[in-house]
């Protein structure tokens, strides 16, 4: 069933008057891939999706679907189907009419439409709901109907605009798994938008992290997390500690950073252009910091607050020169004396610290 139709954004710009909503976006989305756009509110995710769907004309550059430039092709003529942020189901049609609307457009007779709708209702695990009204469904069920309606159009590319944002946590987690399963089954390209990083990381083959209209990094979830390309990505995805300083020395993929709290060594990206003397930021994840000694990066800090969360304890610490540090300790049943006010030696490995040129962090 896989048609393997990919999507390419080529130097794409979108403007609203003077406001630039998307700035020079480049992305290659392979056919059959689950591709996510991740970014804070207002960064241009919906705008990109609407441009791919054809509701928004590019102010520059190209959208190519299956290698074909989409300029001048209307939304009703593109091989895409969009699932709207608010679903936009038709309230005055029955569930099966909603699902089969694209077939009605194609002139398929009523029995054919009904049959296909029932098949799709089967797929989304809602058999027998065809004659209900949309208003009689729960949030999660509506969600699934919206997916079925989009799939019924047999798009090559399915575009999903935060389709799970309105659901509660439990349902969201279940729907994530279902969406992923559906995507594997139908084998078409999914372009998925979310500002929930957990969602993006668990579901996607690839993630594009956006900031204010700019794509900061495109990679698989593991790379985004372990090897962020910019300070924004490092601070936006997951928890991170940032230590600011100047580069002292660069050697063999590692850099030494001079900070008020001491000298630390961290990994450089392969494409790094940092030179000694340059402003840098060193990022280290809370779970990569340990108590004790031995490793090459060491600092002392005092516990300011602790939060016990079952499998882990989260600590807020402050180093001598004022640097705030977050760390997580996995609970192994041992009694720790990391209570408030106690002073500790913290260590982390250079392989787990990432050194990037200083830049903008996510604003809290």
């Amino acid at each position, binding site marked *: 069933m896989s048609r393997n139709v990919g999507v390419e954004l080529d130097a794409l710009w979108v403007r609203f008057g003077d406001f630039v909503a998307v700035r020079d976006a480049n992305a290659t989305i392979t056919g059959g891939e689950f591709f996510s756009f991740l970014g804070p509110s207002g960064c241009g995710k919906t705008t990109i999706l609407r441009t791919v*769907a*054809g*509701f928004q004309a590019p102010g520059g550059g190209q959208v190519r679907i299956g290698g074909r430039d989409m300029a001048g092709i*209307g*939304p*009703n*003529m593109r091989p*895409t*189907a*969009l699932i*709207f*942020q*608010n679903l*936009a*189901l*038709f*309230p*005055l*049609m029955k569930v099966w009419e909603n699902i089969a*609307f*694209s077939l*009605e*457009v*194609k002139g398929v007779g009523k029995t054919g439409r009904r049959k296909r709708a029932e098949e799709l209702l089967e797929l989304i695990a809602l058999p027998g709901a065809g004659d209900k009204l949309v208003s009689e469904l729960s949030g999660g069920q509506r969600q699934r109907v919206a997916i079925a*309606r*989009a799939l019924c*159009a047999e798009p090559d590319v399915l575009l999903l605009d935060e389709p799970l944002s309105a659901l509660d946590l439990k349902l969201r987690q279940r729907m994530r798994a279902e969406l992923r399963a559906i995507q594997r089954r139908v084998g078409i390209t999914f372009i998925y938008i979310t500002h929930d990083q957990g969602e993006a990381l668990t579901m996607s083959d690839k993630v594009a992290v956006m900031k204010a209209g700019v794509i900061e990094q495109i990679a698989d979830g593991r790379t985004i997390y372990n090897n962020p390309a910019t300070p924004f990505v490092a601070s936006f995805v997951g928890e991170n500690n940032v230590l600011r300083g100047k580069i002292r020395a660069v050697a063999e993929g590692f850099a030494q950073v001079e900070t008020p709290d001491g000298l630390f060594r961290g990994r450089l990206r392969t494409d790094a252009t940092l030179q000694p003397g340059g402003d840098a930021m060193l990022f280290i994840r809370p779970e990569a910091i340990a108590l004790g000694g031995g490793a090459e990066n060491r600092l002392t800090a005092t516990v300011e607050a602790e939060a016990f969360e079952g499998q882990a304890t989260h600590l807020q610490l402050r180093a001598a020169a004022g640097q705030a540090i977050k760390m997580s300790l996995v609970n192994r049943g041992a009694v720790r004396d990391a209570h408030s006010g106690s002073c500790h030696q913290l260590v982390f490995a250079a392989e787990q610290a990432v050194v990037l040129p200083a830049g903008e962090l996510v604003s809290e």
Partner: protein
Amino acid sequence: MGAVGGFFERNGLLLGLYLLFGVGFWILVLIVLPQLAMLDLSFRHNLPPSLVGGPDDVYTLENYRHFLVGNPGNPDRLFLFGWDTGIPFNTIDISVFFRTILAALAVTLFDLLLCYPLAYYLGQSNIGGFGRIFLLLLVIPYWVNEILRAFAFRILFGNSGILNFLLLNLGIVDQPADFIRADVALYAGLGYAYILLMIFPIYNAIESLDRNQIEAARDLGSPWWRIHWRVVIPFAKPGIVSGCTMVFMLTAGALAAPQILGGPSSLWFTQIIYQWFNTGQNWARGSAYAVVLLFACVGLVLLLMRLFKVKMGEIGK
């Protein structure tokens, strides 16, 4: 008791009483009672004041009979499929009646076709400030009263009116067109008179339609006409019905426009009613004719609502 108590609790005693008596007075004294009096009058003989309440003041169907068969000695006969039934038939009144109803329906349909695109445009495009100015431009002409507007149309459509002036000078016609005699002025006037009552309910309905639904339909491959047919019109149906109802009722019951703009050969049913009340000095017959018009219009509206599957409750939305 709970509902009544709640009503006063919500509105306070003073406001509650005012609402109760105000609305009660309005409905009962200003609407129901006079209409009942009219209904009663329509079943009575047209008696001089001295005989009212006397032994001759009895109920009769004479006024309704007159609408159907006309004066005694009326030579017109009812023909059914070319077959003379021998029953006398009030050809003039009945044909005016049906022509009025049909013309009112036509005016309503015309207004609907004219207003729907406008209301859609105003309701769906985020034209912001310009849209508001546009709505204002629609409203302002209605500050001018109905009579003045009707006479303005006479000036517009008259023999030496602006329209004829333009047509003559552009060389489109070589002698003035008689828009009044051809009833062009009448239908233009009637069509224009209640256009706002068509635009606003539809505009209100369409404005509350989620734009994403239109886009979703488009995204699923729908051409524009199907989007209207399957998404916009069903959603706007209550607005369309309430607009059509008001325009139809008011057009069928209009008096000023037919009086002022009607051609010499065209009569509106309201004009006949008016004649019975006024020059005919026969209020009883006028009432009967008015009641016939009222029930015909209400019946037709209810029939059409059933045909288009609209419930009464939806219209109030």
